[in-house]
């Protein structure tokens, strides 16, 4: 294909291809055009569809008031009848109108193909010149080109008005500060180290409660006993509780102590083969929960990152870039499992300011 310098009027295409244009085919009459019986039949079909549609609309209203929902909903063949009846009657009422109108258009409305000329998208030269002249005159009269001081100061002032719009967004939320570096596990005291409790049951856990191969979902005791740790109870209520859970959710797993390959400085982070890891994936933050008992691998169901719980939570497969943070644990005076301290690194997904802790 060579460069084409045709003007943009879209013209100059005398013939498309080798065969001369035979022109718009002659109109052929439909049965409904020539046979009064066929015409009447089509008319009856169309109005019957509109009539049936009205019937379904009435049935919709009837179903609305007849079928119960709520606690004692009407069941038929295991289905909630209300939703099905309303959907089917509404759907048919609408479909019948649509099919009826299209049948009307196809069978009874005029079906002569007509041709309309196109116009090029561009304006004609006269309008273009006129516009250009008006524009030039207008700009000339405003003197915007001759008075750069006015123009530039106006542009600067209007441009600066964008700043308040952005500044106003500041109070959308607090600054991150160091909140991503801390979890509620760190709020245990020397006297009362933070106990690890079973999620949902909220009972503290004795090391002997777990058998080898067990995997337990855990939370800090602070949610149910904030006063024991001197924590403001509003910190563990409602949406605040959700924020805590998004960081503090924990996995306990017990394995043969011989299987554990403790990372440097982590020899005493476990209790009798029990290891504790953050439940929040280091990829984009899904809670991890699929345990492969024999390999000690833990799989995230969202994007399949797989972590080795016997080996400092290292990533063995998938897109996560960092090991699962491990929580150092111990037992308190009563033999319950507790956190020795907070996590030693931020939990959850990576973020720009995060300092990498080399393992």
């Amino acid at each position: 294909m060579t460069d084409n310098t045709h003007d943009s009027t879209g013209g100059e295409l005398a013939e498309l291809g080798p065969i001369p244009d035979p022109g718009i085919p002659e109109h052929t009459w439909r049965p409904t055009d020539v046979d009064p019986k066929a015409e009447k039949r089509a008319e009856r079909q169309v109005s019957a569809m509109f009539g049936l549609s009205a019937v379904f609309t009435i049935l919709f209203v009837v179903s609305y008031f007849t079928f119960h929902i709520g606690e004692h909903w009407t069941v038929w063949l295991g289905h909630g009848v209300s939703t099905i009846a309303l959907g089917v009657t509404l759907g048919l009422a609408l479909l019948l109108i649509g099919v009826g109108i299209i049948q009307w258009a196809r069978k009874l409305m005029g079906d002569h193909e007509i041709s309309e000329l196109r116009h090029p998208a561009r304006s004609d030269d006269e309008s273009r010149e006129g516009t250009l002249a008006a524009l030039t005159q207008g700009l000339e009269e405003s003197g915007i080109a001759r008075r750069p001081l006015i123009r530039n100061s106006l542009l600067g002032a209007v441009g600066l008005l964008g700043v308040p719009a952005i500044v106003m967004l500041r109070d959308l939320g607090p600054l991150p500060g160091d909140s991503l570096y801390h979890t509620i596990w760190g709020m245990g005291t020397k006297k009362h180290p933070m106990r690890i409790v079973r999620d949902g049951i909220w009972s503290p856990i004795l090391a002997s409660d777990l058998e080898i191969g067990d995997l337990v979902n855990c939370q800090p005791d602070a949610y149910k006993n904030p006063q024991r740790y001197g924590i403001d109870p509003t910190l563990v209520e409602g949406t605040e509780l959700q924020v805590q859970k998004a960081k503090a959710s924990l996995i306990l797993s017990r394995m043969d102590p011989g299987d554990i390959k403790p990372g440097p400085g982590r020899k005493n982070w476990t209790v009798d083969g029990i290891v504790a890891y953050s439940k929040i994936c280091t990829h984009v933050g899904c809670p991890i929960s699929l345990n492969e008992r024999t390999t000690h691998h833990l799989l995230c169901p969202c994007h399949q990152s797989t972590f080795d719980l016997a080996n400092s939570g290292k990533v063995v497969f998938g897109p996560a870039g960092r090991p699962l943070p491990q929580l150092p644990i111990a037992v308190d005076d009563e033999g319950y499992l507790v956190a020795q301290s907070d996590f030693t690194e931020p939990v959850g997904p990576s973020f720009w300011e995060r300092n990498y802790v080399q393992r």
Partner: protein
Amino acid sequence: MSSADVASTNGTKPATVSGGNKRVGTIANWADERLGLASLAKKNLRKVFPDHWSFMLGEIALWSFVVLLITGVFLTLWFDPSMSEVTYNGSYAPLRGVDVSSAYASTMNISFDVRGGLLLRQMHHWAATLFVASMMIHLMRVYLTGAFRKPREINWVIGCFLVLLGTIEGFTGYSLPDDLLSGTGVRAADGFIKATPIVGTYISFFLFGGEFPGSHIIPRLYSMHILLIPGLLLALIAAHMMLLVYHKHTQWPGPGRTEQNVVGFPMLPVYMAKAGGFFFIVFGTIALLGGLFSLNPVWKFGPYDPSKVTAGSQPDWYMGWPDGLLRIMPAWETHLWGHTVSWNIMVPILVCPPAMLTILILLPFFENWVSGDKREHHLLQRPRNAPTRTAILAALATFYALAWTAGGNDIIAIKFGLSINEITYFLRGAVFVGPVLAFIIARRWCISLQRHDQEKLLHGYESGVLVRSPAGGYAEKHLPLPLAKAYALTARETETYMTEEQMAESAANYKGRFPKLRARLQRAYFAHTVPNVTVEELHEAQHHAEHELHEMEAQIAAGPNRHGPTQGH
């Protein structure tokens, strides 16, 4: 047949003025004296729209959007976009007594205690699914048929932004019920935002009003979902439609269809009836889907809890392909000077989707730059007649499909008993190799189809008539194509590709950037396109066909008498 035989009440007869029309006239006069609409209406009431099934795809998108507006307004009457904690006490027994957010509780209320509420919710969700799907199929139709060419490039760009906005609208919408599945999606979105270099953590804290999940995200998503994005969508759809009216619709080549005209049915009454009727069909289909097929059963997922997740967590289908890329991306993170650069999230989420959108937007401009074509085009091209263009879409679609497949790698592993690791490793390679293969295959395929067309034009179509020759061989007779069909097949421009000298000449004459690259691309883009048949070839073929027809007639006339049973035996 003369028009005197036309049935009496048919619309082709001139209308007689009756009392009803007088009243219409009075109203029209009143309105026109105030609005002056007659000149606009005169031009447009009988505006011609061409007919083809593929022109209906965009209409599906338009009508699903209208259904979204209608069902959405109803849903806002009951939905409470608040994250404040309430105890669920509604009709769904398994969750009674559970602490949930108001957003979740009101979604449950709509589903179980508002008559027709579940229907509305499911219709809204089905319409959203259909909205994005039909937009994407419409986009592919426009690309494959060359409808994006001058003067319609701006409408193409608007369409690309509609797909983007529709996708974001979908995400903000399905996140609102605050159920476990959608909350997991928002959790991942927080991870994506935090992976943004430098400003990510701040954006996350501002968007969520503090740490994830906080109590602000649902109300904020809500105002985006029901005000900001629908407003933008409406404005862009209006612009899309106005440009469609201004440019007039494209049409397929055929007898009487040229670059200068548009042939079809007038808007009033036929097109208005067909399009209006089609609105009811789309609406009715969505109502049936909403009534019969469960979608997003939030009561089964339960309320969002950051410590819980369910296996097989998947976003709505149109979010599947970035999620798939996220799954197959290697675990690359860089740690520099105390900062974390998460390539494993940035590449699939922050780089690939915007890059895909950019590629889509640039497609018409790229083709135009390569071809140097400055003319307007109103006649569509069959995909086979633009092999390279078709192959580009095949490559993009293959990449999309493979990434989308990766988004379901866990489901595939379970359903087919495969190793999820192997699926992931395979797809890591396939997203690179697949598009290349698709490009090559699609291009060759198009060229074969072009040759097939040429074969039909020059040697006729297969008639199904078998003829035995005197020597005993059998052959199928080919008959020439009907004129209208032959015309439609040949009404296209012959795209010749350049010789080396022409390439050099083109490069020398081109004053824009990269003249050599452009010349080489031009050759690659249009090379191997089968040229249109010539007048001479057609004449010869016609002559040959007539000769064959005579021969066949002679054989048919002679055949049975010579070999059949003789009378009088």
